[in-house]
């Protein structure tokens, strides 16, 4: 029980104090049990206040602190840092959110907002009083990585991981490495051959003693967790014999790739005639005759491409754009033209997405005389297969939707990328979440693009979604940097807010293990009886186990029943605001004014008037602090009240004018 608590109530430069009577709240908080220091400050997050908090903690021997300000999303780390610098355990700091949860939504009722703020802060004080000092969980990590899939992304990642000294186990399901890259002849930009590139990577992999490559190998069983994954793999030995091996790795990188969309029977005539083929099949045919395209031994004179087959299906399974197919098809068309001078090509597309430098391909292809016709999903081309001939008719949106017909010797379906059928096995073995498109999901597409919600398991390349070779390598290399940041230290630090088992109460019924999505609960024998044990490396502290426990033997640290109940008591306790203070409060801040914007905004608006002014000029003219003006002006800018209007002569400050 903490008995020397410090409470800091933030004005947030008016965001809170314009609606909540922070001075009165501070007076009331002083009286709370265990509170030694209670202060109201203009900006709790300001450096000056942080220093003051540190000296309070040290001088007054505080054992817990409460900051009542904005959402914990913004400043948890700031105040945890303050606690640590002052020598206090960072979990003895509790945040009360009196801005997003109080002053902003209740700006029309300042008195009620003040009441609610008192309740919120009291609840936080109660929680602080019960708060425990927690230590981060440290796990030893093995400096080894299991890379699943030896395509271009996997091989490149393996080579780079090995280069920084990590032991790599590279496993591949097929007998050969290189994946889908092997299907490509000349690659765009560099002009290299896909097979050569794969061979080059393979020789690098083989030459590196830190990499062990297992081909014709599949994953059998996964146990362990971040830092210490234990993966049983089944390796095919001579003949049909297989042998199971156990690989230990601190981290796992999944680069299992994609598979081509397989057109359905009679989708654009597929399967009805050998003249209808997919793009990968076309590439194969080109390879057979050294680039010369033949059909039944005769040179092909005209070729049609239908784009977006198996992609962008607004009603189908594959709603996404496969990104690579436009460029791949057009690049193939250019390669074809080199060897087949008389070949006429017609591209039936929905939108050409040769983004970035790939635009060059599109320009070249149209300049070489390829015909492009645009169709819409609702009016797809109709392929008529009769005898040995095919006829394609399409409503060309570029020719005022005129019905245009042609009879190509070969029709190529430009198929998209779909998730591999076997990716669901990997997903269930590692518990990687998959999206609606069946590709693996990252945590955050922008900020955590290669991390999965499973600690220590990363994704790279096109198992995550359609990517070309460059993008696949980019993503697997960014996973490499995340992996080495995680395991290179040898120690992994984890948040200690996890579930805890009361060994006396637990009788091991297994219900908790059933609901746990992270496999964090296991049965163990303890003091002669069976109880549950929490694996600190995998537990996420989600709390799903606590309500299902019939013995009430589980709790999540920092969110124990005792803490929650005391917070409720604190929140529900009666709030008595002295008569005088109520009078003053309502007089100063009338609800009508507050509905619009704070007084200072009005002053700023009238100060700017029809001219434009810099922040120092405004501060001077209304006699307010420069920082305060800055803060308000930024908010006004955000809400489109003012806008920047160029810089002053010294290029020191922006001018601001009113936005009308």
């Amino acid at each position, binding site marked *: 029980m903490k008995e020397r608590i410090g409470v800091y109530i933030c004005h947030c430069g008016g965001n809170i104090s314009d609606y909540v009577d922070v001075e009165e709240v501070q007076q009331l908080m002083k009286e709370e049990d265990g509170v030694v220091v209670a202060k109201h400050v203009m900006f709790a997050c300001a450096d000056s206040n942080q220093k003051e908090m540190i000296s309070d903690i040290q001088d007054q021997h505080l054992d817990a602190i409460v900051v009542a300000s904005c959402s914990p999303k913004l400043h948890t780390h700031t105040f945890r840092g303050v606690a640590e610098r002052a020598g206090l355990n960072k979990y003895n700091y509790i945040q009360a959110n009196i801005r997003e949860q109080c002053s902003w939504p209740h700006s029309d009722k300042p008195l009620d907002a003040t009441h609610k703020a008192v309740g919120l802060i009291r609840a936080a004080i109660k929680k602080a009083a019960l708060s425990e000092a927690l230590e981060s969980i440290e796990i030893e990590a093995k400096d080894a990585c299991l890379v699943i899939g030896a395509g271009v992304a996997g091989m490149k990642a393996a080579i780079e991981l090995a280069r920084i000294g990590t032991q790599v186990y590279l496993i591949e399901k097929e007998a050969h490495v290189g994946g889908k890259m092997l299907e490509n002849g000349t690659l765009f930009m560099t002009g290299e051959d896909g097979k050569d590139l794969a061979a080059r990577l393979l020789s690098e992999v083989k030459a590196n003693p830190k990499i062990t490559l297992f081909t014709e190998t599949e994953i059998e069983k996964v146990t362990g967790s971040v830092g210490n994954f234990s993966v049983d793999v089944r390796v095919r030995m001579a003949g049909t014999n297989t042998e199971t091996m156990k690989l230990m790795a601190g981290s796992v990188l999944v680069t299992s790739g994609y598979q081509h969309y397989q057109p359905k029977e009679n989708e654009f005539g597929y399967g009805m005639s050998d003249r209808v083929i997919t793009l990968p099949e076309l590439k194969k045919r080109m390879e057979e005759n050294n680039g010369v395209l033949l059909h039944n031994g005769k040179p092909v004179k005209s070729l049609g491409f239908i784009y977006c087959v198996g992609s962008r299906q607004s009603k189908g399974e594959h709603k996404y754009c496969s990104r690579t197919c436009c460029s791949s098809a057009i690049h193939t068309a250019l390669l074809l033209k080199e060897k087949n001078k008389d070949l006429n090509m017609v591209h039936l597309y929905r939108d050409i997405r040769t983004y970035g430098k790939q635009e060059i391909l599109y320009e070249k292809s*149209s*300049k070489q005389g390829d*015909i492009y016709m645009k169709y819409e999903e609702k009016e797809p081309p109709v392929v008529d297969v009769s005898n040995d001939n095919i006829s394609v008719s399409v409503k*060309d949106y570029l*020719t005022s939707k005129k019905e245009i017909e042609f009879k190509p010797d070969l029709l190529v379906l430009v198929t998209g990328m779909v998730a591999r059928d076997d990716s669901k096995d990997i997903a269930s073995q590692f518990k990687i979440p998959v999206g609606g498109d069946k590709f693996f999901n990252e945590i955050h597409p922008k900020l955590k693009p290669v991390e999965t919600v499973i600690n220590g398991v990363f994704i790279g390349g096109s198992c995550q979604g359609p990517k070309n070779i460059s993008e696949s390598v980019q993503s697997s290399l960014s996973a490499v940097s995340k992996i080495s940041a995680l395991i290179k230290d040898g120690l992994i630090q984890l948040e200690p807010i996890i579930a805890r088992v009361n060994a006396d109460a637990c009788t091991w019924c297994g219900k908790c293990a059933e609901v746990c999505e992270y496999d964090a609960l296991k049965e163990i024998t303890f003091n002669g009886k069976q109880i549950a044990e929490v694996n600190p490396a995998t537990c996420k502290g989600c709390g799903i186990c606590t309500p299902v426990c019939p013995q009430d033997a589980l709790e999540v640290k920092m969110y124990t029943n005792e803490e929650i109940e005391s917070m409720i008591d604190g929140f529900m306790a009666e709030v008595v605001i002295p008569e005088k203070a109520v009078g003053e409060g309502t007089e100063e801040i009338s609800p009508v004014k507050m509905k619009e914007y704070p007084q200072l905004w009005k002053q700023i608006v009238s100060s700017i008037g029809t001219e434009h002014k810099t922040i120092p000029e405004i501060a001077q003219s209304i006699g307010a602090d420069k920082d305060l003006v800055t803060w308000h002006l930024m908010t006004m800018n955000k809400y489109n009240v003012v806008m920047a209007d160029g810089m002053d002569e010294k290029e020191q400050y922006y001018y601001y004018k009113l936005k009308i």
Partner: protein
Amino acid sequence: MAVINFEFSKKIKKYGAKDFDACFNCGTCTAICDLSDADNSFPRKMIRYTTLGIQDEIKTSLDPWLCYYCGDCSQSCPRQADPGNLMMSLRRWLTSKYDWTGLSGLLYRHMWAYIIGFLFIALAIVGAFMSDVFTQSVWLHYGHLFEMLAIASVFVVILFPNIIRMWYFSVWKPTKKFKIKPYFVAISDLLVHMFTQKRSLDCQKEHTDTLWYVEHLLLVFSYLSLLVITVFLDWFSTESALVNVFGYVVSGVIFIVTADFVRRRIHKTSEKSKFSHPSDWFFVIWLFMMGLSAFAVRLFIDLDLLENNFWLYLFHLTVLVQWALIIVPFGKWTHFLYRSFAMYFARILNMPATEKGKK
């Protein structure tokens, strides 16, 4: 249902088309064109039909003739696909389609056909002169009579049927309707456009090439005047000082203006003179030679030098005959007719629409 014809885009390149393949159908050309409107939207549509090889749509369209090649479209094309040049090439192709003899197409596609034709005519004239069948005065007197006859028969045998064919393709085929009244109402358009090229002034409204317009207008009138003066007023043997001076003036204007046109084509001063097809060169150069030689012949007569320099007259006559038998019926001269008739037909075609609009 239209069928793609891969060969057409290759064929049209022989008529001078170049980079239209690069078009990605953005429509900037049509948007920027001062002459394109809802009834006749071009050039994007024409590029599209060319790319796909839908010849019927082009053959029945008057749009290529409604373009005066100001070059705005080519300048603003984000792909440098040169729509203006394609429209020009389509006009050549249309000319060959209208021509029932098929000679236009042959001449447009192959420069050697032109050269053979020119040589043949030159040799025939020189041969006839050498044979001494006619005296100098007969040559002088009947030379222009022959020209008149040639032009008249070219009109009757070739150009008139071609205009009918043009009408058949562009008016009858798409509408299958014939009402006589609009043909009378629109006749003023025919005459105005034939003699003034008024519509070209709408191109590039802000920076109209007025000098070009004036030069072209002068050229048209001088050319027609020279025709009248030599054929009907017998300039080379006239006694009238007025006719004589007028003859000098118009023939002078012809060779000065055409000299400037040649200069424009050499220096590629504007979009319209950037790409010169052989037929363009022959047209301006023969006009230049015609004006210059006519001027010189009359000068030699006035100075009494012609009798001893009769080769000059023969040169003049050769140019005239080559002009009348090759360039007028099958070459670029035809744009004088087709362009104005296109305007006339377009007016007729759009007439019900305009009347509806007025109500």
